[in-house]
């Protein structure tokens, strides 16, 4: 591979880096209690919501930004961010029909390969599209309503189903849980809400597509999924953003609640803008995701394919409260160029015979840093609980870094914790072997990476697995050089 072709391919532009020209209602930069009151008023929220936000804000003010992770970035000026931006033609009232949505927005989602229009939308996947801070369209609502499944924006849920939101919001991630979660709790503007009633298996995949468009807006979305007794739901989330040379903050909170015998599967394909090859720009993805297996025999499964963002700090976790409940975490985290990722999971075993499984695949290329950080905690009452963790790292080239930081805390001696780790490499010798059989470098890398990730791909819904596979290959083209 010559240096020039390698460079050309690495420099392939980020495909989703376009900006949509829509008029936005953006509030001035800065954060104080008045801003929070303004956000809450704009959204016509019930009183309890404003209290929730203010409580979070007051706690956030007393907290320090964390610095324990294996990544570094220049300080964020929280007064230099605008905390609310909504496309102007999309009033805070939800549109009744897609015909009323600004065509420029629909076109944006069309460009992202995500047609929202009735005729062309993905078959059997209901989509909620979030643009900057506001949910613009949710598809398949009626069909879902027939089964009693509620799938809408969280703003809408606060108007229509305030009691459910009040009961569960903050029940998994309390307002003062951590710095970024507290910030989110104070200022979040929208996100998705899912409620699956007792005994119902959601008839289709639910999907939210997050798009950051404005340059200086933080995106703070909030997702809440509640699965009642014996219900099942599978939820997917996708993310893209335009290219700006300043960093944008994305601090989301996702809460999942699974009651007795319920099952929630949450999958993410994250492709935020990662910054350029010199590390300029890109998204800071500081997200709190946590699921609570509240009921007995419940199950929560996280699957993530993380390919974007300049910096990712993300630990989708399971709190296994109900006896015999199950938590799973399947992850692929790919970093290239100057990206930094510190990601993993926490499995907190509280109930009896709780089980958890962690499969983490980290791929580091270029000058990137990729760290797995995971906590397995066996509480004093977690009799017979078991965990299995497998953390595999793959290094591509000679300048990338991979780390594994497993933390294991056991307070009950009837539990069992297993941890396996491996490191492999795609280097000159592996590529030479493939080349000697007439296989190009691109094909070789893509075969090795796909093989490495197969276990996790198997967890994704079919159509998304092949998308994810292609996404990884695209991200790695000629990263070996």
């Amino acid at each position, binding site marked *: 591979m010559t240096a020039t072709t390698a460079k050309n391919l690495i420099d392939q532009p980020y495909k989703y880096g376009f900006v949509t020209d829509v008029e936005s209602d953006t509030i001035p930069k800065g954060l104080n209690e008045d801003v929070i009151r303004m956000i809450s008023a704009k959204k016509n929220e019930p009183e309890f919501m404003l209290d929730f936000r203010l409580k979070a804000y007051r706690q956030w003010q007393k907290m320090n930004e964390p610095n324990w992770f294996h990544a570094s970035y220049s300080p964020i000026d929280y007064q230099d961010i605008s905390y609310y931006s909504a496309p102007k033609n999309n009033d805070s009232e939800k549109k009744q029909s897609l015909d009323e949505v600004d065509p420029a927005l629909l076109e944006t989602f069309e460009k992202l390969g995500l047609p929202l229009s009735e005729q062309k939308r993905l078959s059997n996947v209901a989509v909620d599209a979030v643009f900057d801070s506001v949910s613009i369209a949710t598809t398949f609502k009626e069909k879902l309503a027939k089964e009693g499944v509620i799938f809408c924006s969280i703003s809408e849920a606060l108007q229509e189903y305030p009691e459910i939101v009040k009961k569960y919001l903050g029940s998994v991630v309390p307002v003062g849980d951590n710095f970024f979660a507290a910030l989110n709790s104070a200022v979040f503007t929208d996100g998705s809400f899912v409620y699956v009633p007792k005994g119902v298996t959601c008839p289709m995949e639910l999907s939210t597509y997050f798009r950051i468009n404005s340059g200086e807006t933080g995106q703070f979305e909030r997702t809440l999924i509640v699965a009642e007794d014996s219900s099942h739901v599978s939820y997917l989330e996708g993310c893209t953003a335009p290219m700006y040379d300043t960093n944008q903050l994305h601090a989301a909170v996702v809460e999942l609640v699974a009651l007795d015998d319920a099952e929630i599967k949450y999958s993410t394909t994250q492709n935020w803008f990662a910054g350029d090859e010199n590390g300029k720009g890109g998204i800071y993805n500081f997200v709190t995701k946590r699921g609570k297996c509240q009921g007995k025999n419940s199950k929560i499964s996280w699957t993530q394919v993380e390919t974007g963002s300049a910096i990712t700090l993300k630990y989708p976790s399971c709190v296994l409260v109900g006896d015999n409940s199950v938590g799973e975490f399947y992850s692929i985290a790919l970093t290239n160029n100057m990206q930094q990722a510190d990601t993993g999971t926490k499995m907190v075993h509280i109930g009896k015979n709780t089980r958890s499984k962690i499969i983490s695949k980290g791929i580091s290329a270029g000058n990137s840093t990729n760290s797995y950080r995971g906590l397995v905690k066996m509480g004093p009452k977690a009799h017979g609980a078991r965990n299995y963790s497998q953390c595999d790292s793959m290094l591509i080239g000679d300048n990338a870094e991979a780390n594994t930081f497993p933390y294991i805390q056991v307070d009950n001696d009837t539990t069992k914790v297993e941890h396996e780790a491996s490191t492999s490499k795609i280097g000159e010798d592996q590529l030479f072997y*493939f080349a000697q059989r007439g296989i190009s470098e691109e094909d070789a890398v893509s075969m090795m990476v796909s093989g490495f990730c197969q276990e996790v791909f198997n967890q994704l819904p079919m159509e998304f697995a092949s998308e994810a596979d292609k996404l990884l290959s695209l991200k790695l083209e000629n990263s070996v050089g």
Partner: protein
Amino acid sequence: MIRENSNVILSVRNLTAEVEGTPILNGVNLEVKAGEIHAIMGRNGSGKSTLSKVLAGHPDYKVTEGEIIFQGENILEMEPDERSLKGMFLAFQYPLEIPGVSTLDFLRVAYNSQRKQQGLEEMDAFDFEDLVEEKLELVKMDPSFLERSLNEGFSGGEKKRNEILQMALLEPALGILDETDSGLDIDALKIVANGVNQLAKPDNATVMITHYQRILNYVEPDYVHVMRDGRIVTSGGKELAQELEERGYEWIEEEAVSEVSAQ
């Protein structure tokens, strides 16, 4: 088999190469014609394995002088995959273990890369599986190997047989076997040797790099070359290998030294 009018497949002229600034080939000359089997012998560090890697274009080695004419074309500027697609095959001394990539997928992608190069349509997975199973016979490998990750957890002998299987599929104009015999027990050696014999045709050629004469009892070379200090110091027929077996490398080295000092 030596035939006067055969085409020249490989012609190496005054080839010198270095690795990280250290000279390691010091003027190799070698001509290989269609239908011929050559053996290159020598002690460890004589440069014989290096020669195979330089021929195949390993990026660690820098050619400083000379030419490699393969199938009538100087291939020095060609990438390793281009050389492979032109018909050069290297059976690795230490085949790499590639977790997650099944042997069958690897073989199919390699085979189809070659078909694409020849302007042929790719072969579908079903037809390909039939083809591979036919070739498995040759190296007496069980079809269950195909589902396993490439070379992962294979024994030394299995890895080497897998290399010969790949050669059988790709049918190269030139097969270079880098110490394919090393570390094999006698049964595996016979299987590998039998594979090599069956694959040798009047229109292709084989270069066997080996430390020991043992494999030459099963694969009869037309020419034997002895390398020392990065060059071929003696060439002869198969009787040379026999002599090496009996007398060791030293007498050749002594002769070579006196030859060089006489010049």
